């Protein structure tokens, strides 16, 4: 152990003890002070009822599987459609002008409307066009609403990825005699997609949370199930349970997305 390391080890020991003491003090303050509020017993009964927690947890976890399912089948659709829209928006041939306009309008509309409105409008509107069961299922059309909204976001992310591939890469490909199509397929897209993985991870975390909004058009997924329990038990603890279940999934996912974003940023700077 050299001189520097010895000094640093000593500093670290001091830091740790200071940190330990101050953390303990802050925690103690929170634990002691909050229960002194006059409404605490009522709030605890409404929001932190352990027996309700235990009772509703398994069903809510099961309901969460529906969120996971919807998520699982939405993702490939979103990525596929997002890529198509991104390419449409980048189309240069004049005959493809409508496609380009369509892409721009599409992205504007679906990014501009709150997802809950899209879910109401698509989830209730399209089935009304006279589709027979099971083709009018809210699962299908709710999923469509999510796919439409999120593919707009993903398309923008992909487009930014495509544009971020340095012009000299396209130039190099074109100078070798590659066609526009091959340049996009072999040179630009592979790089663009790699770069936007982190940004898209963020989108997926957001999607995972927004799947819950499908409950407003019927599917009994976790938020709906929590609402049913809330009505049945007149207790908000089920929402807390739902929040906890979400955290169990989204915290690792956001952390991973952040890690990717950081790595990506470090790699570029």
């Amino acid at each position, binding site marked *: 152990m050299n001189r520097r390391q010895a000094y640093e080890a000593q500093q670290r020991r001091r830091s740790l003890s200071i940190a330990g003491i101050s953390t303990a003090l802050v925690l103690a303050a929170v634990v002691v002070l909050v229960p002194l509020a006059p409404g605490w017993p*009522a709030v605890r009964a*409404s929001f932190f009822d352990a027996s309700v927690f235990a009772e509703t947890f398994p069903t809510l976890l099961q309901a969460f599987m529906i969120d996971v399912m919807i998520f699982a089948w939405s993702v490939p659709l979103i990525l596929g459609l997002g890529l198509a829209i991104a390419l449409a928006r980048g189309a240069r041939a004049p005959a493809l002008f409508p496609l380009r306009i369509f892409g721009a309008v599409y992205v504007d509309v679906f990014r501009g409307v709150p997802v809950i409105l899209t879910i*109401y409008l698509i989830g*209730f*509107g399209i*089935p*009304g*066009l*006279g*589709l*027979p*069961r099971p083709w*009018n299922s*809210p699962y299908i059309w709710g999923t469509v609403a999510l796919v439409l909204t999120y593919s707009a976001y993903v398309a923008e992310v992909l487009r930014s990825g495509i544009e971020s591939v340095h012009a000299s890469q396209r130039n190099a490909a074109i100078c070798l005699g590659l066609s526009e199509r091959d340049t996009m397929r072999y040179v630009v897209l592979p790089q663009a997609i790699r770069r936007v993985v982190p940004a898209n991870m963020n989108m997926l975390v957001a999607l995972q949370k927004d799947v819950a909004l499908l409950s*407003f*058009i*019927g599917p*009994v997924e976790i938020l*709906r199930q929590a*609402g*049913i329990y*809330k*009505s*049945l038990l*007149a207790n*908000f603890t089920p929402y807390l349970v739902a929040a906890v279940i979400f955290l169990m999934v989204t915290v690792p996912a956001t952390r991973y997305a952040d890690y990717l974003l950081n790595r990506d940023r470090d790699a570029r700077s």
Partner: protein
Amino acid sequence: QSCHEGKTISAGKLTIATGNPAYYPWVLDDAPESGQGFEAAVAYALAGKMGFMQEDVIWTRTSFDQAIQPGAKDFDLNMQQFSITAQRDKVVDFSAPYYTAPMAVLVRGGDGLTADMATLKRLKWGVVATTTALPVVMEKIAPESPPLIYDDNVNVVEAMKAGQIDAALFDLPTALYLGAVVLEGGQVLGQFTADETKNPDHFGALMTEGNPLKECVDAALTEMKADGSLAAIEAQWLQEATGVPLIQ
């Protein structure tokens, strides 16, 4: 050849929708299959009158929004205290009314309050968005500050517990139930007479627009009113309504 032949979504069965969850005293224990609770009992009686066996009744659940969306529905009848209004009638069909509910005022710890208009105007109101209580509050009571509006009964109750609202307007049976069971310290301050409001709150079973089943349902309901069986069911499940003061 019974009236309903070929008119239900699955042959020989009657599919009835209720809320998710369904509330006391309309359905007991969120279990309509038991026939316990006013709407559950009416449903089975109605089905019987239309010529269905008890086991031919199938229950399903919908939200309010699902009930009024255009297009095919996955129920024949939907009974969850739908108020019949002319505007809704343009989009969906309603049966003849099976219950006429007076509106009642739910408050918490309302000992200091009296059931007169001057008092009611000063209160902060909350109502459920999908009920017809909102127009009643706005037109009859016209409170000094605008009401807050919620998705369902329990959110109203929670807002009352949080002190965000003073009073809420429900149909009387719901108000009685919430005041007695759900809301600690809850109390029904008073009721409006059913026929006093401009649009009395008639509950009807909801069907898709132009549903041919409507005539069968109406015929069966008329019969139930005539033979007193509807009144008997009402007496069995909704009898506590007496003793709530009228609001002048």
